[in-house]
């Protein structure tokens, strides 16, 4: 059995599940804040095997889900500006005002290209020197360094027709906001493996130190997730709250310092809007002034505008773990993957979509 396969091994998983069963007293409400965890927990069947007193909540961990309506409105505005839009695929279906999406904009004639890497967008700009190419910068700390590297390349090589619309989001400030919410119903955080590989473990220490909430950095295989849950149980039984790195095969405690340096060279923190949650101070990344020539906000003179809130949508409460997706009145009726109302139903990694798609 390969190392990776052992993290899927049914017997090992069963053994950990039995220990959780035996050692957990009372209810454990844990939240993951990573779309890959959301999908893995459902897809692997882990969710259907959890003891009844282990409650799984999906937080604001899907980059598509947390992209704000006002930001999507700007994507669509750009699509109408005769620019070539380069984007990761899963933004295509995110509804903006009047339920318009990049897909509908594309059908109306906008030039939208799905790329797998931001570097493809530079190539697109070089191949189309008479057009402006804008890359939609959406994602967390995981993807931001690669986009920073792309911007640096564009600047150094003088690719003047390339810009980035940066709506990157940062995970620790969102966790700050959640942990400080007096209504928060979360007893433990499963921390994102990918993001942590970049930022390391230090930025999460406040969870345990200031709020007494245990947290574990975990990988994405079933055994990774179950071991993290068992660590929560063990900490609770010992009366401790710590931040533990249980994904040491990928995550160094100090993170990836080179990637962080790249990120900090190009971007700086700024306040950002999160769908369903609102403004979180210091939770976004914007381009530093030296990169103004590649900042789509400035190149196209864009301004974020208020757009009306979606009526009846309780994504905000879902993202904060206050209700489960099926407790929203719209769930499965007015809001389905075919006709998503809120962000959590749009993305394949959204908690409502996962609930709808995978729950038997």
């Amino acid at each position, binding site marked *: 059995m390969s190392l990776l396969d052992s993290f899927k091994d049914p017997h090992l998983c069963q053994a950990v599940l039995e220990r959780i069963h035996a050692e957990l007293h009372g209810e454990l409400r844990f939240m993951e804040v990573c*779309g890959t965890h959301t999908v893995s927990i459902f897809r692997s069947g882990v*969710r259907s*095997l959890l003891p009844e007193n282990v409650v799984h909540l999906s937080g604001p961990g899907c980059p598509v889900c947390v992209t704000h309506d006002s930001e999507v409105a700007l994507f669509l505005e750009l699509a109408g500006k005769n620019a070539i839009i380069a984007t990761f695929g899963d933004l295509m279906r995110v509804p903006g005002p009047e339920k318009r999406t990049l897909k509908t904009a594309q059908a109306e004639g906008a030039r939208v290209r799905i790329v797998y890497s931001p570097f493809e967008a530079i190539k697109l700009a070089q191949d189309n020197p008479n057009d402006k190419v804008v890359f939609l910068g959406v994602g967390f700390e995981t993807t931001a360094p690669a986009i920073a590297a792309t911007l640096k390349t564009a600047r150094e090589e003088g690719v003047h027709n390339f810009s980035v619309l940066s709506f990157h989001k940062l995970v620790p400030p969102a966790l700050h906001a959640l942990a400080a919410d007096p209504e928060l119903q979360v007893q433990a955080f499963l921390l994102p493996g990918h993001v942590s590989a970049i930022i390391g473990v230090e930025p999460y220490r406040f969870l345990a130190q200031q709020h007494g909430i245990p947290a574990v950095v975990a990988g994405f295989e079933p055994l990774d997730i179950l071991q993290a849950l068992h660590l929560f149980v063990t900490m609770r039984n010992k009366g401790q709250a710590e931040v533990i790195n249980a994904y040491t095969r990928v995550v160094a405690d100090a993170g990836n310092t080179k990637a962080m340096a790249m990120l900090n060279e190009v971007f700086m923190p700024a306040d950002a809007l999160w769908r369903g949650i609102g403004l979180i101070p210091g939770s976004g990344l914007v381009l530093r002034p030296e990169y103004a020539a590649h900042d789509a906000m400035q190149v196209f003179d864009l301004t974020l505008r208020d757009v009306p809130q979606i009526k009846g949508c309780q994504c905000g409460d879902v993202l904060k773990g206050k209700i489960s997706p099926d407790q929203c009145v719209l769930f499965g009726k007015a809001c389905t993957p075919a006709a998503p109302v809120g962000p959590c139903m749009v993305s394949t990694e959204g908690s409502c979509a996962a609930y709808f798609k995978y729950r038997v």
Partner: protein
Amino acid sequence: MERVLLDYGSGGKASHRLIGELFLKYLGNAYLNRLDDAALLDIHGPISVSTDTFTVDPIFFPGGDIGALAVHGTVNDVAMLGARPRFLTCGFIIEEGLPMADLERIVASMGQAARDAGVMVVTGDTKVVPKGMVDKIFINTTGIGEVFVPKPPSGHRAAPGDAILVNGFIGDHGLAILAQREGLTFDAPVCSDCASLNHLIARLLEAIPEVHVLRDPTRGGLATTLNEIAGQSQVECRIFEDRIPVRPEVSGGCSFLGLDPLYLANEGKFLCILPEQYAQQALEIMRSDPLGHHAACIGIVGQDHPGKVVLQTPLGGTRLMDMLEGEQLPRIC
């Protein structure tokens, strides 16, 4: 380089040259060579008819091309009703400027695929449209076959207690196309599984006419096809994830791209749903054929959740395997 000109679709001498020098050369037979307005066919008993229009980017891909695909795809659809495919019609819409060598390669490939499948192209049509009006070439084929089983398989006939079989690895075609289109390279290259299944289907049905459902999981993949069947028959399809044959390079490529092989297109696969007592015999027939070496029983038909496909994961957990909303889009992270 010689290219297809608008003249070739004019109906005049250029069109006739194209027909004579290209289409008849590779696809010619006693029916087609008559060049009447329609083909006169001799068909017996109930017939199975299916039509499909093929658009694929790129038109040449590892394991096949649009021409072979246009034959295999329709042959397979006709065969799934328990029929022997006999005749194909073929309509081309060609973009002005397509290299003649590409067209020849495609038509030659159709000819080979048709011979392999034992079908004849009996009538056809060619249109050439101005540059930009279509992407290189679109091909429509309609197939006709003679049904040879008393009770044709149908998506409505899955019944509780049936076994669900598939004839081999899934997801190959979808990933091969995507990788080629996006210029992605993997350590182990993935080839399309594009193939005509009619000979294997005939052997299977001659031995086991009791087969309830045959269907090829093309667009939307295995997951979508199972959902269609569960819906049509109002049964539960319960699938065991660890029994689904997926090549390691396909699952690797998919996990890299954030895709799910269960939703990737296949062009040489079929699902066979039949009473459990015939499952072993059917697997033996499949495995004795080059197109079925890796056949497996992947699930059973039940009645707990009518209209749903329930996946049992290797951990023993269960989850829904739903239909996709639209096309699969790669994820951000």
